[in-house]
């Protein structure tokens, strides 16, 4: 029982960042109809941006986090404008191939810049865990959970309460009609991709200090993001949030009670089982944003 509580808490910490990854991907997938296989690379970008800001520029941890988010947003906007905008009227398969190309290019670019050796990202938190009854939690992990929760809340506010969010929801429902009503679709697409990439970069900067930063870290992140999107349903932001937490907890339980070697298999199995049994996601009622 005590072990179970500990697994649940660890799962929530992981799940919060998975939710960030999933929300970004579900927006891009749902709104732009782009299967973004490069999503994990923005997660890697975030981790390395934080590493560079902390280690090379000597910034403090919060500023490094903000820097990583900015790098993700900038990189995302750049990719959207240069690669996706010219292909907006092409089929989903065409853009998917381009994103696979971007994924390989970015990952090997990172390998060239940073080398294959994993980098550990320093953080200012004490290593002694906080103990609360049967559960112990490193201060860094608590910080990660809190920041992830804050970013998820900020995403909701952005989507539900701002003009940009309203335009995004309108574009998701019917791009043509929104365009007729004066929504600048191209700019909404750029904003969506930049926003999704920024969330992925934030997840990378948050998980980077817990694990390590290495060039191929984005592969698993991409797959986890896809599992979350599939769990939650396409374009379903609350679904992605719940899906992320669920995946985090399921992985911890799988690693704790089955075998740690098969931890990453949980995400793969979720993709297969959910797609086969409930292709619209387990929370599917209506497909919409918000």
């Amino acid at each position, binding site marked *: 029982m005590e072990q179970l509580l500990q697994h649940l808490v660890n799962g929530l910490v992981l799940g919060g960042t998975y939710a960030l990854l999933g929300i970004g991907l579900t927006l891009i997938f749902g709104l732009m109809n782009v299967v973004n296989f490069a999503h994990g690379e923005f997660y890697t970008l975030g981790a390395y941006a934080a590493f560079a800001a902390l280690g090379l520029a000597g910034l403090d941890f919060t500023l490094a986090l903000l820097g990583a988010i900015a790098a993700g947003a900038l990189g995302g906007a750049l990719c959207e404008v240069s690669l996706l905008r010219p292909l907006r009227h092409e089929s989903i398969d065409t853009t998917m191939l381009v994103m696979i190309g971007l994924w390989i290019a970015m990952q090997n670019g990172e390998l060239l810049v940073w080398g294959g050796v994993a980098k550990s990202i320093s953080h200012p938190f004490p290593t002694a865990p906080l103990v609360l009854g049967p559960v112990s939690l490193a201060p860094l992990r608590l910080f990660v959970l809190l920041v992830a929760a804050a970013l998820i809340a900020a995403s909701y506010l952005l989507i539900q309460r701002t003009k940009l969010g309203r335009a995004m929801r309108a574009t998701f429902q019917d791009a043509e009609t929104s365009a007729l009503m004066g929504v600048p679709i191209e700019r909404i697409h750029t904003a969506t991709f930049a926003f999704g990439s920024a969330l992925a970069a934030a997840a990378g900067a948050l998980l980077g200090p817990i694990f390590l930063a290495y060039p191929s870290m984005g592969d698993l992140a991409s797959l986890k993001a896809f599992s979350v999107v599939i769990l939650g349903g396409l374009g379903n932001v609350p679904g992605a949030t719940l899906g992320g937490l669920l995946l985090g907890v399921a992985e911890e339980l799988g690693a704790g009670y089955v075998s740690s070697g098969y931890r990453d298999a949980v995400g*793969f199995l979720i993709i297969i089982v959910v797609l086969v049994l409930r292709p619209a996601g387990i929370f599917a009622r209506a497909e919409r944003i918000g």
Partner: protein
Amino acid sequence: MRRSGRAVAALLALTLPFWLANPYVLHVVIMAGIFGVLALSLNLLLGYTGQLSLGHAAFFGIGAYTSALLTLRLEWSFWVALPAAATAAGLAGWCIGRLALKLRGAYFVLVTISFAGVVSLVSINWMDLTNGPLGLPGVPPPELGPWSLRTKRAYYYLVLAAVAASCLACKRLVGSRIGRAFVALRENESLAESIGVDVTHYLVLAAVVSAGLAGMAGSLYAHYTRFVSPEVFLFTYTVTMVIMVVAGGKGTLAGPLVGAGLFTALPEALRAVTSWQWQMLAYGVLLVLLVFFLPRGIVPALTAVRRRS
């Protein structure tokens, strides 16, 4: 004209090991042949039914492991292990085809990736069967009567036969009713269904044949390198296959072979000049450029040029 061209090509292919003395170049040609079979197999799905499988390395790996385990543990002959490897991979393809028959496009891609991920994790973690990350060394070379096909020259002919057989099989399949059903599915699924094409049946069939060919390539690879490790499931292999098919020309028979030749020879030629990372980086950029500037691939573009002149 075309017939004599073909005869010359066949003659060149048959005599190649005799005027190509350099064993390194011969090695590259053999690898190109193995990748040629893989590219042909991926092309059946991607080029003809329009479904992209990003888990093809799984079928390749299943074939390699099946063949290696059967010859090592049960001491089966290569000639039995090869069809067994193709059958095992085909069976996996059948499972994926049955599971994913309702899914299209991105969802199909995700199921295939996840399948490859699970198989790869099993190969790493099931120590008793696969020897884990250490792999299986000492896979025996095939033997033909009293001769061992240990030499590169002999293995070249084995791979050549496999490429020719795969090519012929694909040609017959694509030219038949079945192939027309594949294309009908790719072009307009609802229309195809309305005129009586059994969608599920044909998609599963394409998946089985495609996976079986990939399994055969895996077996050829295992007995050539004589070593199998979880690296056969590397995503790099799948990416290489996709680039070969897309660059060569999906939905054509010559395209995947041209792509396989080009993208096996090119990295080897570049190896002297650049590192492996630059190559993979170039692959990514190349894939993007191909989609933008040569979306249909090299072979269709060449055919169009020849028609015009």
